[in-house]
């Protein structure tokens, strides 16, 4: 059975030469709902990955396939079907609302366009149920304008919107980074609940490793357009293999009485060539790292890293990234 959505050796280079994503393959199966975190800094390619999966941009190389069909060629009914199954939540809870309309508009439109309900009342019932499932009270939300609600409320309405269509996959691109810390846990917990109760796959894109650790099962670490490390979240966070992941984890300020910020090991100081993207900052860079880009080496069934330090492990087969994600 073909995967629900699949990236096949997808690369994206923007006009002007900027390589946003290089040779990534990922397949998400319908019958195996997963909660995957994609972690990376700005420029790592994580937002490009999201937009490719959502069909908002087209890959420069490789194909994005929805149930076996190339996404670029889809239109009409097939495209509608894709929209129903793959939905999104974006970062900015202010921008995503049309200030001309009340917040109801963003919920009634999909009900109408995808014909989710036969009558107005039925549609209203669906909307109210969706709002309640993200912890909002419909009477406090419906009928209001976006500027009358808080960022956290607006973001939860967006999650409710994504839910309405009963998708198979929700791509959440930094859904809580513009929301207060005390609300982040609430919103992420509702995403987790959606995954567990309704068996929806969630792709949680973020720069915040701590929340990724708490809420996701597996994690992909992106660095400068390529996958640096991937695997089960316990392994990657507790025993990171890639020097970048180690740097990342070592830089996170922990809420603890121990001062965990240690001095970084200095880079082996060789600016990059065609090899590993991290070579110019890597304290363990070897000559080999400058000339060839490492592929993902599978160190354990649920842990792989793209680093020549792990070259003794078998290389992961092309397109098999999903297998280490549990």
């Amino acid at each position: 059975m073909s995967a629900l959505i699949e990236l096949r050796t997808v690369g994206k280079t923007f006009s002007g030469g900027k390589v946003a994503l290089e040779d990534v393959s990922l397949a998400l199966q319908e019958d195996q709902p997963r909660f995957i975190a994609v972690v990376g800094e700005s420029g790592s390619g994580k937002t490009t990955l999201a937009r490719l999966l959502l069909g908002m941009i087209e890959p420069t190389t490789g194909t994005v396939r929805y149930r076996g069909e190339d996404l670029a060629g889809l239109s009409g009914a097939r495209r509608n079907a894709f929209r129903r199954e793959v939905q999104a939540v974006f970062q900015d809870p202010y921008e995503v609302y049309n200030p001309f309309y009340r917040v109801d508009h963003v919920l009634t439109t999909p009900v109408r366009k995808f014909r989710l309900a036969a009558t107005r009342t039925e549609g209203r019932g669906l909307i109210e149920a969706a709002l309640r499932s993200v912890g909002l009270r419909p009477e406090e939300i419906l009928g209001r304008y976006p500027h009358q609600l808080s960022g956290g409320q607006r973001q939860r309405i967006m999650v409710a919107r994504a839910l309405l269509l009963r998708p198979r996959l929700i791509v959440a691109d930094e859904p809580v980074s513009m929301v207060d810390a005390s609300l982040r846990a609430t919103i992420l917990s509702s995403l987790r609940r959606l995954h567990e109760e309704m068996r929806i796959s969630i792709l949680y894109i973020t720069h915040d490793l701590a929340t990724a650790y708490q809420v996701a099962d597996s994690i992909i670490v992106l660095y400068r357009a390529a996958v640096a490390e991937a695997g089960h979240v316990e392994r990657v966070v507790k025993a990171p293999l890639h020097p970048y992941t180690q740097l990342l984890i070592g830089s996170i300020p922990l809420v603890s009485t121990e001062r965990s910020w240690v001095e970084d090991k200095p880079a082996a100081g060789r600016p990059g060539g065609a090899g590993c993207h991290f070579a110019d900052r890597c304290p363990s860079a070897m000559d080999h790292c400058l000339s060839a880009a490492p592929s993902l080496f599978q160190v354990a069934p649920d842990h792989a890293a793209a680093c020549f330090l792990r070259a003794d492990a078998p290389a992961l087969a092309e397109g098999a990234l999903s297998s280490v994600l549990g």
Partner: protein
Amino acid sequence: MTVAARDMNDTILRVDRLRVAYDHPLGAVRAVDEVSFSLRPHERFGLAGESGSGKSTMSLAILRMIKPPGRIEGGEVWLGDIALSTLSADAMRALRLAGIAMVPQGSMNSLNPVVRIRDQIRDALADHGLTPGRRALDERVAGLLTQVGLPADVAGKYPHELSGGMKQRACIAIAICLRPKVIIADEPTSALDVVVQKQVMQTLGRVQQDLGAAIILVGHDMGLMAQFVDRLGIMYAGRLVEVAPIRTIITAPRHPYTRMLIDSLPSLDHRGGLRGIPGLAPLLRELPAGCAFHPRCPQAVERCRTEKPAVRPMGPDATVACHLA
């Protein structure tokens, strides 16, 4: 970063019952409500709060940079033994950067995009009556850049030629060029990634130590506070609800909001339930009666609904505003 015993009794900055209000067509809104705290020399003080807590207004208020429709309603800020409200506009301007400096959030907005870094420092010096000659200026700029860990060629560059972390360090260089006694860093790393954030914060810490200055770090990232500050103040709905040494805040917080805030933060130790604080922060113009936190507080009692808790000292370094603490 411990504070020497002899400094315990000195305060370099004292905020005394500061009140800031904004005039809104529907009525005045109190953004900062009787906030008091003191800062010792060499101390790192954090001011944490979420959106609507009033912390950003605080840093502007200390520098007396509140513009209409906001105004400082009352209270005082003392720098050493100078009461800032008694200063003329010119005297206050002279004090900014030389006495109290600010490292702002979003260096993109604070660096002039058409002026080279060297010239921005030169302008800052000139505003305070210092006009070194070309050689002296270059030396001074080079010294500042070294202090913040930037290469010397940054002096001739424009802001857009620098990365986010470098821009922020350039802002730090400008902030310290007149050797201020107090540095206010308002969310200095919010737009930066975690690795660069660490570098910038380490730079800030080093610079503060070299200068012997005190720092107020304003922000909402509790992890950052835990790693950087000596004492932390927590703001909620315009009030300073708790102040304590950072160790105490993390291990034994007294105010329920602090407690729930610490609990809601994701840890990297073990995966457990994520717990948020239910409810919403109140709108400043629709504050509940009594304690502003009581609608969300699991321990609220009748008194909390009617009587606003006063700020009470809890030892030499701590205060709390809660009936139950």
